[in-house]
């Protein structure tokens, strides 16, 4: 009886894993067999594809930098302090991960848009965010932040218990102990968070098209270009998709190797 149950569980597990593999791998395979490497290379030379590629690289790197800059102190505070309403703040930080990207784009418009809460005051300084490359960066950073905060906060929390007090008793100031103790010890988490945030920024579509619009060379990143090209040049859309997948795959693979090297 027990043996039978074990077999059933194993069969179901195998089925589930096989099904998942099928679901995740088959689309990538079917994309790759739709186009030959030669075609891919010739299409890479096309200006509109290069334009989208460069814009995507530029904006996702900037968005990652922005997330790092704002996210490191935020993750540190969340890991090292207790304060009323902390759970609510944590949930708020996680929210962009689950809200539909178009909703994110709309709330960004209502915040930073010309008629938005903050956008109105920005307008007085002559700053208008929507339809600019900066808006793409903001949309990507907004969507990518939780992918950074999650692992980094977790990383900081595990270090917290063991070493912070030791550093403090040895007379290290908070900033010093953050830079010399916390950061090096949680480097794998910081790397993971950075790579995940960068990959998420690279793939951002909904918030970008809603908040930043769609203008080649200014706000049309690769995912937007895929969507637009699909309607008149499927080949270009496929090329861009292959590029995007390779970039994301490379990024995540580099992360795995990087993590295994860090002690």
């Amino acid at each position, binding site marked *: 009886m027990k043996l039978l149950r074990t077999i059933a569980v194993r069969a179901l597990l195998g089925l589930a894993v096989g099904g998942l593999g099928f679901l995740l791998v088959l689309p990538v395979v079917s994309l790759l067999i739709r186009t030959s490497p030669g075609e891919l290379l010739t299409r890479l030379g096309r200006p509109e594809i290069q334009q989208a590629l460069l814009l995507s690289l530029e904006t996702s790197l900037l968005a990652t930098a922005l997330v790092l800059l704002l996210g490191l102190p935020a993750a540190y505070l969340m890991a090292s302090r207790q304060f009323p309403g902390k759970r609510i703040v944590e949930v708020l930080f996680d929210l962009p991960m689950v809200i539909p990207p178009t909703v994110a784009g709309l709330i960004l418009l209502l915040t930073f848009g010309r008629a938005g809460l903050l956008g109105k005051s920005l307008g007085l300084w002559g700053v208008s965010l929507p339809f600019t490359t900066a808006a793409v960066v903001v949309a990507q950073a907004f969507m990518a932040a939780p992918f950074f905060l999650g692992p980094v906060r977790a990383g900081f929390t595990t270090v917290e218990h063991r070493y912070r007090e030791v550093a403090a008793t040895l007379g290290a100031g908070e900033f010093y102990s953050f830079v010399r103790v916390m950061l090096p010890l949680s480097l794998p988490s910081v790397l993971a968070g950075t790579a995940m945030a960068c990959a998420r920024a690279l793939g951002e579509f909904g918030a970008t098209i809603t908040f930043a619009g769609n203008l080649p060379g200014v706000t049309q990143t690769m995912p937007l270009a895929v*969507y637009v090209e699909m309607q008149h040049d499927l080949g270009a859309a496929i090329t861009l998709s292959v590029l995007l997948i390779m970039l994301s795959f490379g990024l995540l693979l580099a992360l795995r190797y990087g993590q295994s090297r860090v002690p």
Partner: protein
Amino acid sequence: MKRSRSVATLLSALSVLGVSSSRSAAQGPTTLTVFAAASLTEPFSRLGRSFEAAHPGTTVRFNFTGSQQLVLQIQEGAEADVFASADERWMQTAKDSGLVEGEPVLFARNELVVIVPVANPAGIKRLQDLSHSGVKLVIAAEAVPVGHYTREMLAKLSSQPGFGSKYGQQVLANVASYEENVKGVVAKVQLGEADAGVVYRSDATGSVASQLTTLEIPEASNVIASYPIAVVRGADSPELAKAFVELVESATGQESLKKAGFIPVQPATQPSQ
């Protein structure tokens, strides 16, 4: 014990998946799926409700987006019973690809207008103002019917006295975003993010009208959009699909379209049955 419960959960989850897929197949004949251009959202939603009232047990599902997107979806195997396009170009593509049954019927016309937010931050009073530098214009992408018509209209205006031959070029240089359907243009102007947009007259009527100011385009330079409709080949319920097309052509349908700002093609007096 715990393990056997989780196995049971997994099994029931799988069976739910199985059941739901067979149910959607059985639902086919009572669900009518209409793929229609985004600009048809209001009148078609209304017609859908009256169709459901006239055919008890039938549910009408709509997929509203840019016509180019709809053709692509049907090409890639999306299940549709009726296709209504915002231009003859995409209906022709659908016809050439063997996606529709029989001859498409022209059921409505529409014309272009320029919309500006009521606050009018760029102070746009006449069409000439659209070419001033710094104006943030939002129009539809070239592949979208209304985007195609917009370019045609700008080209026509450029040859009119008082506009100058560079007019179209200057206006296009002001484009801040190419939207993927006409409703995207309306939303960006309505929110006050864009200074101006080019849409169909029917998009500037109804609930959004109070937030927009409309600038007319002279008749000689305007472009008239023609809306064809057809039954999709391999429709689950061709009779229902045909009945829906007939409803759109009927006096009721035409009245509905007229109310939404379209130009009806059938004389309103023509009997519907």
